[in-house]
């Protein structure tokens, strides 16, 4: 079977798994909803954008009003199946946004994790390795603790913080147009440590909003809205497609940078692009869900064991598996006696797995 059809078969399989996990998850909760009802309610929620109009929103910041072009989409719902209205409300308004957001965040983190592991030629790398999560944490905690009403709210602050941190790490590690991977890693560790100190200080200043800040830091999906999905899903999908177009290049980069160059890859340019896009996709996920660790580490690693290192197969399957994994762990997180932040669950499952890998598998040098 050639690579293309293997990629297709695996991807379809993973997508089916994601759908099943999502449906089961939507059925689980304080009110049990029968699966057929869930399926019908979910189909009713499927919408495609059928019209688009450019509008100019204005964003007020620091007392000034900035015009921002935006796209106003109109949606058409494809299905109109009869469902009990209480169940439909529970599924569509409460559970599905959370499930779809979870799937999106898992998809985004696993995508970025796959790319980072390839980029660092180390299956222990994860998406926050270059400081993205720490930057997002500073943005979010600062907004909460200092009660700043930032334009676009908490998510925008976290998103901007994440990108600034990644960019700072990149600038520090770059000299003369070259960004050595080992330097990048060390710069990432240094920036993460520094930003960790900033977050700790901000938490001390948080006062009554300390709980809120801590909850954000633990990573959570509750109170998810379709608005958050609409902001995150397109970014995740576009970034994923861009990275998928570089799957072959990522394979060749695994041979080492000099080898990749002799095979026709513009190494520094490709590295910049991969770093930028995976930082954006990580930032988009972290901005809405907080710091959810280990998804981007475990999922690509497990998928590599299953489908091999070829990014043309690994990237789509990891991304879909990441979505399924996060939906499943979030279902666990919310179905216990007291709801837990999902970040706790993923870390509790992920850390032992990480240690298992550390002890049993070869740890590749950088």
């Amino acid at each position: 079977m050639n690579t293309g059809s293997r990629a297709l078969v695996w991807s379809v399989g993973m997508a089916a798994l994601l759908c099943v996990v999502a449906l089961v998850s939507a059925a689980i909760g304080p009110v049990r909803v029968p699966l057929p009802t869930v399926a019908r309610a979910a189909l009713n929620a499927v919408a495609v954008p059928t019209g688009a109009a450019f509008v100019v929103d204005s964003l007020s910041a620091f007392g000034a009003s900035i015009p921002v072009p935006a796209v106003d989409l109109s949606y058409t719902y494809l299905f109109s199946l009869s469902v009990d209205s209480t169940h439909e409300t529970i599924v569509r308004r409460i559970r599905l946004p959370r499930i779809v957001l979870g799937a999106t965040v898992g998809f985004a983190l696993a995508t970025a994790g796959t790319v980072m592991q390839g980029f660092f030629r180390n299956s222990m790398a994860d998406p926050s390795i270059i400081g993205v999560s720490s930057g997002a944490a500073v943005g979010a905690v600062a907004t909460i603790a200092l009660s700043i009403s930032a334009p676009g709210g908490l998510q925008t602050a976290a998103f901007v913080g994440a990108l600034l941190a990644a960019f700072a790490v990149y600038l520090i590690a770059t000299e003369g147009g070259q960004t050595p991977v080992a330097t990048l890693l060390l710069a990432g560790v240094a920036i993460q440590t520094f930003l960790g100190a900033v977050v700790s200080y901000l938490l001390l200043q948080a006062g009554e909003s300390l709980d809120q800040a801590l909850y954000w830091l633990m990573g959570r999906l509750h109170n998810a809205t379709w608005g958050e999905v609409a902001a995150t899903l397109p970014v995740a999908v576009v970034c994923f497609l861009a990275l998928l177009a570089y799957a072959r290049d990522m394979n060749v980069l695994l041979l080492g940078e000099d080898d990749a160059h002799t095979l026709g890859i513009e190494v520094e340019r490709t590295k910049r692009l991969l770093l930028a896009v995976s930082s954006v996709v990580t930032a988009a996920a972290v901005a809405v869900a907080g710091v959810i660790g280990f998804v981007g580490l475990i999922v690509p690693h497990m998928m590599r064991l299953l489908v091999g290192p070829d990014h043309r197969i690994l990237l789509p399957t990891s991304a879909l598996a990441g979505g399924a994994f996060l939906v499943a762990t979030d279902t666990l997180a919310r179905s216990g006696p007291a709801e837990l932040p999902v970040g706790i669950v993923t870390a509790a499952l992920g850390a032992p797995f990480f240690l298992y890998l550390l002890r049993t598998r070869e740890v590749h040098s950088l």
Partner: protein
Amino acid sequence: MNGRSESPLDSTADPLIAVEDVTVAYGDLDVLEGVSLSIERGEFVGLVGPNGAGKTTLLSAINGVANPDSGTVRVDGLPVAESPARAVSRRVATVPQDTTLAFDFSVEDVVAMGRTPYHDRLSADPDADGAVERALERTETAEFRDRSIRSLSGGERQRAVLARAFAQETPALVLDEPTASLDINHQVRTLDLVRDRVDTEGTAVLAAIHDLDLAARFCDRIAVLSDGDLLAVGSPDAVLTGDRLETAFDTATAVRSDPITGAPTVTPLSDRGETDLRVHVTGSGRTAARSIATLRRAGATVTAGVLPAGDVAAATAADLGVETVTAPPFEPVDDRTLAAIEADVAAADAVVVAGRVAPAVREVVGDGRPVVAVRSERDPERAVPGVGDIPADDGSAVGRDRGQSVAETATPLAVRETVTPPTVVDAVVEAAEQAVVADD
């Protein structure tokens, strides 16, 4: 195999690989200093030189991994430094020194990566399958195409990486130590594949090869790189000489013709010592040969004579580039020959007499210089020359019969010490020092 020898100088076409006055510096250190080298289509050039000479850097300047600080490299007319990696990689393929891979790609996947320069972002290269198939066939790696590259032996992995380079289907190929860490069978097999590529496709090849014998056997020309400088470029016979190799590698070597392949073979004579004495050696047989080799290895400047022509001592002296005077064996040594060694003897700090010596020669070498006598290691009781038991009684350079008894006509030498070949250096140093003290 060396039938091609030098490329025709009157060729009007540009060389396929043209390195012109290339300097590459890392920081303040010039790794390559103004290197120029041309390689024609269908030519296999071996790049030899000590570690740190700049071999890898020169290859990197050709495949575009390193950018020269000055000078240009053109491959098939394309200026490498100014061109996109993709364009360069369609012209020159590279077999890197380190071929280990941390991830579990199959052999076929790795070979298929050789087609990277021909893939567009969204559409695959239509020739990929055919090119990969040909490369797998060519390198005899098709049989393990589905195995993980990590499960292969070193020799098999080297062939797989060679297949990757072949799949690039480039007019030029550079290889960095393709035979390092392979056993002899795989060394020869790997270079056979490269040689075959050169002969059938007209590929221009530059390969850094640390094994001088293999380089001489497979390459049309050898380029000797030392300290960032090309010392010599030419046919193996012309380039691989003891002197040149000593300059390049800073160690004494013996170069002789391999009786089977006919190519020059090189034997390094281990480390050089500290001695800068000038020593004249006379004698014959294995004892003289070993004495000459030991003294050369110790760094002494050695002259030799009169040695019997065709004797193992004379052959060793020639291999080591030692200035030697020989005379036909079994004949009296004539005066012209004796006169030829007089100057060498006079200039020497010490004279070594090893094995049988003609009486006429003994008189010349005993003339005022400190003498160290060397006896055979195998039979130390026999033949201590100069003590009166020299059996060369017929005046010839060497006696016919080893069983001959003491030559009454021999003039005993004022021998300082009698030693065996391994200890000759210490004895010579001591004798020379005593002579200096005595002169004072």
